[in-house]
């Protein structure tokens, strides 16, 4: 038995559309230890949300299809489960927080009944117990007057409050793994700070493993232990969050960090990554990043680079680090 809570190996999800096959996620492997937070960062179209959806088996099919890979949580492969078995895992072992707190909650049920639903299904609680636990969870996530709020509908709450309710639903069954897909993107900075602090605190209290998916490098820096940088459906770089941000190896990671405006930095011109993210149905030959790369070499144009291990905690997909 390995000490990893989560082992994802060679996960690939393609979308079969009229325009051709979209390689949204192409052979991703990573693992997460118990109590660890892994940040997955990338721009739009990099495949980070598809990763989360594939792990929860929520990819709409057709057009989407998980074509290969395994997602092993606590020794069991999620991708081999039947529909019924997967339902029992979702919300119990693995829970997810979505980006849009406005649309992820059901508007016709009270907040309380939405928390109680998963308690009653997964923990077989009776109504009374579930209600008590729901109120308990609401106060844990910092909602004032939980006895009153439990009977309110989502539209009566602000965006930040709704995201807290989402977190309460996600954590009520004590999941081993919490997947957060852009949990603070729709929120204001002061509310974002509240939610990030809450996720950090709850993680410590419950020793939950967290997969934090976001495009915001600052959020990753504040909550993650390790970070995985994605581009066009592939892993570009992996390592400890401090090492990756302070000494990025992949030219993409470096350029991404340099292109963010920072306070106190008085360069007049921001660093620019030329061009745009490639179309995932007509991918360039060679390295997927080569058309935008400053350090592009001849080999980059023709051959796909492999993932090179710098040491046991650091991987990078770039010809610059090929040992031979």
């Amino acid at each position, binding site marked *: 038995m390995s000490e990893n809570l989560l082992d994802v190996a060679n996960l690939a999800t393609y979308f079969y559309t009229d325009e051709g096959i979209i390689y949204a996620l192409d052979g991703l492997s990573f693992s997460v230890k118990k109590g660890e937070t892994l940040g997955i960062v990338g721009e739009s179209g990099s495949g980070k949300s598809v990763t989360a959806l594939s792990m929860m088996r929520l990819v709409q099919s057709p057009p989407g299809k998980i074509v290969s890979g395994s997602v092993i949580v606590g020794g069991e492969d999620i991708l081999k489960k039947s529909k019924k078995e997967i339902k029992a895992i979702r919300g119990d072992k693995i829970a997810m927080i979505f980006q849009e707190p406005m649309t992820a909650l059901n508007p016709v049920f009270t907040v309380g009944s939405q928390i109680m639903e998963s308690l009653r299904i997964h923990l077989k609680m009776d109504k009374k117990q579930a209600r008590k636990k729901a109120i308990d969870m609401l106060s844990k996530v910092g909602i004032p007057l939980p006895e009153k709020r439990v009977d309110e509908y989502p539209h009566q709450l602000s965006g930040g409050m709704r995201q807290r309710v989402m977190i309460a639903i996600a954590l009520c069954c004590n999941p081993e793994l919490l997947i957060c897909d852009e949990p603070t993107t729709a929120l204001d*900075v*002061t509310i974002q700070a509240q939610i990030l602090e809450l996720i950090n605190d709850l993680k410590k209290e419950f020793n939950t493993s967290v997969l934090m998916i976001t495009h915001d490098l*600052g959020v990753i820096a504040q909550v993650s232990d390790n970070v995985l940088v994605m581009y066009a459906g592939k892993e570009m770089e992996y390592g400890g969050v401090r090492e990756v941000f302070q000494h990025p190896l992949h030219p993409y990671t470096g350029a991404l960090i340099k292109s963010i*405006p920072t306070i106190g930095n008085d360069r007049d011109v921001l660093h620019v990554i030329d061009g745009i993210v490639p179309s995932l149905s007509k991918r360039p030959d060679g390295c997927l990043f080569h058309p935008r790369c400053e350090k592009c070499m001849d080999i980059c144009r023709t051959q796909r680079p492999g993932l090179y291990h710098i040491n046991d905690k650091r991987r990078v997909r770039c010809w610059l680090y090929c040992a031979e």
Partner: protein
Amino acid sequence: MTNDSAPLLSLRNVRKWFPVASSKIGERKTYVHAVNDVSLDIKRGETLGIVGESGCGKTTLGRAMIRLQKLTGGRVIFDGEDITNYNEKQLRPLRKHMQVIFQDPYSSLDPRMTVSDIIAEPFVFQNMYTKTERAERVRELMSLCGLDPIYARRYAHEFSGGQRQRIGIARALALTPQFILCDEPVSALDVSIQSQILNLLISLQKKSGLTYAFISHNLSVVYHISDRIAVMYLGYVVELAPRKELYFHAVHPYTKALLKSIPKISFDSEPIKAQLRGDLPNPVNLPGGCVFCTRCPNSKGRCQMELPLLREIAPGHQVACHYAEETTA
């Protein structure tokens, strides 16, 4: 002729309230207090950044600035002319000098028009140039904004988000305006594209001496592009200062909280902590006294009674807080 040191745009006690539909006949009318008594000047050639969280009235203030909206109170003076009560017909010739770049590069471009139609539309409204001159101008504008003029006959949906934003910028520049309102122009873009657009806006300003009002919720972006910055909270400007002064010597407790809430890519400081408890109060029923008193960590008795006015505490640095001197010390 106005002299050059006079501000290009002045707002005096600008107020914009939106009536809330009341459910019962005879019920007292209530209002969303979107913008309250905002007075500020924008100098020629400068960029004024306007930051605040959602619902603070920054977009409404921007729209009031260029009279896309009627005001509830106050005055707008553009280039020495009081345009507060101008009607559409009177405003049209002025529109040449004031343009907008919108947040959403998807919904702000007509899907049934080609790029050249979109960029040339302002010429149609202003009755400028012949057909061939227009085509020539469109080509110029496209290359100025980093778009290949070959694509002039394509439709907006054929472009990526960043390129669409360039089309929006080209359209805003078409009439060579003096003033451009940039309403969250990079919020919908990825970081690598965001830097391309910010660089473009800065280089255009250098080339033609444009004046910008730059609205954003992203404090780092606003710091990068602005000369002076106004911080808004619940429709009020709570602090206004040159950018360095604002970021390194912030006085208002809200500005301080906002700055500390930015997740930074640094590992020396403490992990992120919530700076403010609670949510934004409802803009229909504003709190009495200082609008920030419900969330302010230093709130005292006076704050609940009396609304603090924006006052100058250092040259060019204005703050609306009763205890500004104490927090600076």
